C-alpha cells in the first residue's frame, strides 16, 4: 500500500511518470489481465482490453483523486473497459454481461488458449450460469483475491449485498457441479 502511495506520486510527476508506469505494469499487468480475461473470455479480447485499460490509466492518472486505493481504481477501469468492450461487440459475438451459458462456453472452447479438461469446463459452465452479480463477485473474490470492501468500491455495491451474493454463488456452483457429475 505504501509502495502504491510512492508510485502515485511518481506517476503524477512528469519527470518520473514513464519509469513509474513501467513499475505499475510490472505490478498490476498480470492481475488486471486475468480480471479482464474472465469477463471477455478469450485471450485476444483480453489482450485488446488490457491495452486500452492501461492507456486509460496512463492518460487519466492525473485525475485520480486518491479517494480509493490505486489498485481499486485500476480494477474499476479494467471492469468498465471490459463491459464497454462486450457492449460494443454484442452484435458480432452475441457475448454480453447478460450472455447465456451456452454462448459463453462456445466462446471459451473456441479460444486456442483454452486447454481445460472436463472438470474445468464444468466449473466454467457452472460459473457462467450464475447471475451477473454473483458471477462478478465470485470471480473477484475467489480468483482475484480481492476483499469485499475492494469489490464494493469497484462495483459500487454494498458489502453486505456482495457477501450475500458470494455465498449464494458458492452454493450454486457446488450444486451445479454435483448435478453434472
Amino acid at each position: 500500500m505504501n509502495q502504491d502511495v510512492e508510485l502515485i506520486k511518481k506517476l503524477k510527476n512528469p519527470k518520473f511518470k514513464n519509469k513509474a508506469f513501467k513499475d505499475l505494469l510490472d505490478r498490476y499487468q498480470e492481475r488486471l489481465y486475468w480480471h479482464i480475461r474472465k469477463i471477455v473470455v478469450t485471450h485476444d479480447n483480453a489482450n485488446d482490453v488490457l491495452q486500452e485499460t492501461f492507456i486509460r490509466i496512463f492518460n487519466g492518472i492525473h485525475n485520480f483523486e486518491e479517494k480509493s486505493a490505486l489498485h481499486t481504481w485500476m480494477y474499476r477501469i479494467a471492469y468498465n473497459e471490459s463491459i464497454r468492450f462486450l457492449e460494443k461487440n454484442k452484435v458480432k459475438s452475441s457475448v454480453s454481461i447478460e450472455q447465456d451459458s451456452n454462448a459463453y462456453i462456445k466462446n471459451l472452447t473456441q479460444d486456442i488458449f483454452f486447454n481445460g479438461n472436463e472438470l474445468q469446463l464444468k466449473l466454467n459452465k457452472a460459473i457462467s450460469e450464475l447471475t451477473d452479480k454473483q458471477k462478478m463477485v465470485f470471480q473477484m473474490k475467489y480468483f482475484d483475491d480481492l476483499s469485499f470492501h475492494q469489490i464494493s468500491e469497484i462495483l459500487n455495491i454494498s458489502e453486505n449485498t456482495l457477501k450475500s451474493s458470494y455465498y449464494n454463488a458458492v452454493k450454486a456452483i457446488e450444486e451445479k457441479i454435483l448435478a453434472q457429475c
Partner: protein
Amino acid sequence: MENSNQHKNNISKLHKDKLGMDIPEDFFAKSKENILNKVIKPEKPKQTIFWLRPMVAYPLAASFLLAIGLTFYLRKNSTKTTEQITNTEAVKTVRSYFNENDFLTSSLLVPDSDIDAYLDNYIVNNVVIETELSEQQLENIFINSVLIEDSLINNYLDKSLIENIVL
C-alpha cells in the same frame, strides 16, 4: 502483502489449473512492450528557431556587443580629439598671452620630445634673423654716422650699438 504477492505469483497458475485458461509464452513481457510503445512516445529533439540556436546565437550576441563597444570607443576617441584641439588652442592662447617672443615662457609649454625642434626653429627665426638685421642696422649706423657731426658721433654710436647689438 505477502499473501498478495503470493497470489500475484500464482494467479496465472490458478487460472490455468481451475479454469483451463492459458496464455502465450512471454505474453506479459510482449504486452508490456506494446503498451509502453503506445503510451510513451519517443522524445523529439527540441526544435529551436534558427537564430536562437547556440551555434548562431552566441556569435550574434558577441558581434552585437562588439558593435556597441566599438561605437562607444570611437565616440570617446572623438571627444579626446576635441579635447586635444581645445588644449592646443589653450596653449596658443597662453603663448600669445605671455608674448610669443618670450622664449623661456614659451619653452615651458613645448613637450620635451619637441624641444630640440623648437630650439632650432627659435634660433633660425630669432637669433639668425636678428643677427642679420643687426648687421644691416650696424651698416646703417655707420652710413648714418658719416652724416652726423663729429661732436655727436660717440654718443650716437654708443646708443645705437646698445640698441641693435645687445638687444
